[in-house]
């Protein structure tokens, strides 16, 4: 495994290959099994309302239904995440860690080095496609007709899109100083291209979709036998990927290791002048006056983008989707027992209930993930020795921790406030009658689960490493969400359900404020904070 760059890279990819492959495979298998004629028929009547999300071609067949439901939005977008992160990291990540210099010090030509890494990525994606096809075949078996060739082609079409975006990320990473910037820009491009394709479907006579790789991806739907695919579209995706890879190779072979391809030369007035200016600026800088302010400023931008996304989702849902989808969904629910079972206990008959089911079933999870991304920096900073100098100043450890905790809580508090305001404004815009008291309750009830996640990070970070904390809490959020979301289907014992923060959150949109859960969870978060404080007070501060 350590004989060559490509085999070592492939070894690094083994967990994502299995993880993503099994995830999409499982999703396909389960979704095929669920697509009984009744469910397909119910969704077929709903689909025209969701043209924005996909083209309902042959929606009455299980293959058309699955293609519409999974393969036109969720799966391709999800499956692009890892390749984008990997593309951005392929060389820039190693440069950031300082490990590329060691590799380049060996007698390996740069072009070959990058080609081997790209090769490993291609093999990884092919393996994911095989696992995807495997899941699809298992799913097809449950409905009685198997087509291995089409399943493999569908996997291939998916990874063509993913590879294309990963090569775009690789290309962008040649111009950026950090891999996260490249990954961020490429993710933005991914969403933009999805949006352009959607506009193309909804707006007559539009041409913007031709700019979108998503459009060319959607020109092939190998799972649907009656759909006329276009091999030219697939070749175009391959060509675009190859072009990005070739330009990246050219740039990588010529640029300085560790620097972007082009960097703006700062004009130094004089060394001393610049030094004096930066010292004066720092003296005026409010963000460096306290640990809490510094934490706010360090996480300000990432919090801003999260919150902007949150507000857009709320506004988008309430203003665009609600008025169109509400009636269609009610009809589908009445006709389909499986759907009714999934949404068992949620009162989707009223406006408030509908918002509760379709907005507040997911928002607490997004807010919890947002809280996790904010809080996890504490574990990362501890592990990377970034707190070493701060802890050498005469500030007590509890104070250092409390100031950081306070800053994170303040940012997390913005999420419910902005959600409430966005829904308030959204419902005013489309004149949608809803109990504003319940919106307030549902928004602010999202805070205690987020506080618990923050508390868990601080309680675990004293003992566990960054990777372990991140892994445990991501898994907990995923499980807690599934437990709460599938409560009607799973029928788990009460005590298991009560371990899920999202089950505790309940449905304040219909039930109103649940003070017992609110105060109980907040109290639990305080207990976690105290555990974190005690742990940190008596723990060794280890480095990396």
């Amino acid at each position, binding site marked *: 495994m350590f004989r060559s760059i490509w085999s070592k890279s492939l070894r690094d990819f083994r967990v994502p290959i299995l993880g993503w492959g099994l995830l999409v495979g499982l999703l396909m298998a389960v979704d095929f099994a669920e697509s009984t004629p009744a469910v397909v028929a119910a969704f077929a009547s709903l689909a025209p309302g969701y043209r924005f999300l996909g083209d309902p071609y042959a929606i009455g067949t299980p293959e058309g239904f699955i293609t519409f439901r999974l393969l036109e939005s969720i799966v391709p977008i999800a499956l692009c995440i890892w390749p984008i992160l990997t593309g951005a990291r392929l060389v820039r990540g190693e440069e950031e860690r300082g490990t590329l210099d060691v590799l380049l010090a060996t007698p390996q030509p740069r072009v070959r080095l990058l080609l081997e890494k790209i090769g490993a990525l291609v093999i990884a994606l092919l393996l994911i496609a095989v696992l995807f096809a495997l899941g699809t075949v298992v799913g097809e078996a449950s409905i009685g007709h198997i087509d291995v060739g089409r399943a493999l082609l569908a996997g291939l079409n998916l990874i063509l899109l993913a590879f294309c975006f990963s090569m775009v990320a690789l290309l962008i990473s040649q111009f950026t100083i950090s891999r996260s910037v490249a990954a961020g820009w490429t993710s933005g491009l991914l969403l933009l291209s999805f949006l352009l394709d959607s506009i193309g479907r909804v707006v007559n006579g539009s041409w913007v979709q031709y700019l979108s790789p998503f459009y060319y991806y959607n020109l092939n739907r190998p799972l649907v036998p009656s759909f006329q695919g276009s091999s030219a579209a697939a070749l175009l995706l391959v060509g675009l990927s190859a072009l990005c890879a070739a330009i990246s190779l050219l740039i990588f072979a010529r640029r300085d290791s560790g620097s972007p391809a082009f960097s703006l030369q700062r004009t130094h007035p004089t060394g001393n002048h610049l030094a004096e200016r930066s010292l004066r600026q*720092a003296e005026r800088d409010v963000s*460096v006056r306290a640990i809490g302010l510094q934490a706010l400023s360090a996480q300000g931008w990432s919090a801003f983008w999260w919150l902007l996304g949150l507000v857009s989702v709320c506004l988008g849902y309430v203003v665009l989707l609600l008025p169109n989808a509400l009636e269609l969904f009610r009809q589908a629910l009445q006709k389909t027992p499986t759907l009714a079972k999934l949404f068992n206990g949620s009162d989707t008959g009223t406006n408030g209930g509908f918002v509760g089911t379709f907005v507040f079933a997911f928002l607490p999870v997004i807010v919890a993930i947002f809280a996790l991304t904010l809080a996890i920096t504490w574990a990362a900073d501890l592990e990377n020795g970034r707190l070493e100098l701060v802890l050498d100043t005469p500030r007590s450890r509890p104070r250092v921790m409390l100031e950081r905790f306070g800053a994170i809580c303040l940012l997390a508090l913005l999420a419910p406030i902005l959600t409430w305001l966005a829904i308030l404004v959204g419902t005013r815009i489309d004149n949608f009658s809803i109990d504003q008291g319940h919106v307030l309750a549902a928004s602010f009830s999202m805070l205690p689960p987020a506080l618990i996640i923050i508390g868990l990070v601080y309680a675990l970070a004293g003992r566990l490493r960054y990777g372990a904390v991140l892994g445990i809490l991501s898994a907990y959020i995923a499980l807690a969400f599934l437990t709460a979301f599938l409560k009607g289907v799973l029928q788990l014992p009460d005590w298991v359900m009560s371990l899920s923060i999202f089950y505790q959150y309940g449905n304040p949109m219909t039930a109103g404020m649940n003070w017992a859960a609110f105060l109980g969870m907040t109290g639990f978060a305080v207990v976690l904070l105290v555990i974190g404080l005690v742990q940190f007070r*008596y723990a*060794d*501060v280890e480095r990396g």
Partner: protein
Amino acid sequence: MSTIIQTNRLTKSYGKSRGIIEVAFAISEGEVFGYLGPNGAGKTTTMRVLMGLLRPSSGSASIGGLDCWRQPTEVKKLVGYLPGEFNFDPGLRGAQIIEYLGHLRGGIDHAYVRSLIDRLGFDPSKRFREYSRGNKQKLGLVQAFMHQPAVFILDEPTSGLDPLNQQEFYKMVDEEHAEGRTIFLSSHILPEVEHTCDRVAIIREGRLVKIDHVSTLKDIHQHEVEISFPGPASIDWFKNVAGVASVAERADERILQLNVQGALTEIIRIASDHQATNFATREPSLEEIFLRFYEPELSPIARA
């Protein structure tokens, strides 16, 4: 003078072979105290226990009479610390980091900070991620000195610095010393310790093996001397001279190799009597001294 830093049977064990075992020393106020040892000997562990970052497994450490683990905040008011390795928010500029740490220390004299920056030739306008190793070290020194503390704890302060800045650092240490401040610095560079310190402790594999004045340490300091003669040379010329640990003859009989402890005056005289044509001395590395120091059967010096 009163004791300002004291460790009492200080033990910190973690992992299998890391840590320190029953380390005990006392540093007086106004002293420059060197802490010598090879990599991984336990220098950094001792310093991090003193800074209250690690909890002693047993024993205790105090600075200014304050327990380093129980009263860390009070201890840190007295100390300027340079970690052996440190990291910071990569996006912050040098000036911002200095200002931030200054605020956390309760305010600093900006004029003094500027003078430090000038002395070390540090550019505070760059972001942390853009600094080279040497510049990160300069930033570490600025933040350790900027609040004019009573005690300095400096973990390998010259590592990464260029020779000019090393000289500047020695001057800074001399000045602080002259003003009566206490400096505890670790190093594995022998001349540096000889140049700056009054007393030295040597640590190896977690245990203190020697604490003494630098002048005494010089006694274990050996020279390797190579003398060339115009004709065949004899080992007998040198073997009974005081301070000569060993004499060996090179293959061509005209060159002698000696290990000498202490002054070379007598050796030079004898070499001159025999019309020596070349006289070369080499100071052994600290590691070589250590090896001799710990392996008594190989070295008559260690028996002394």
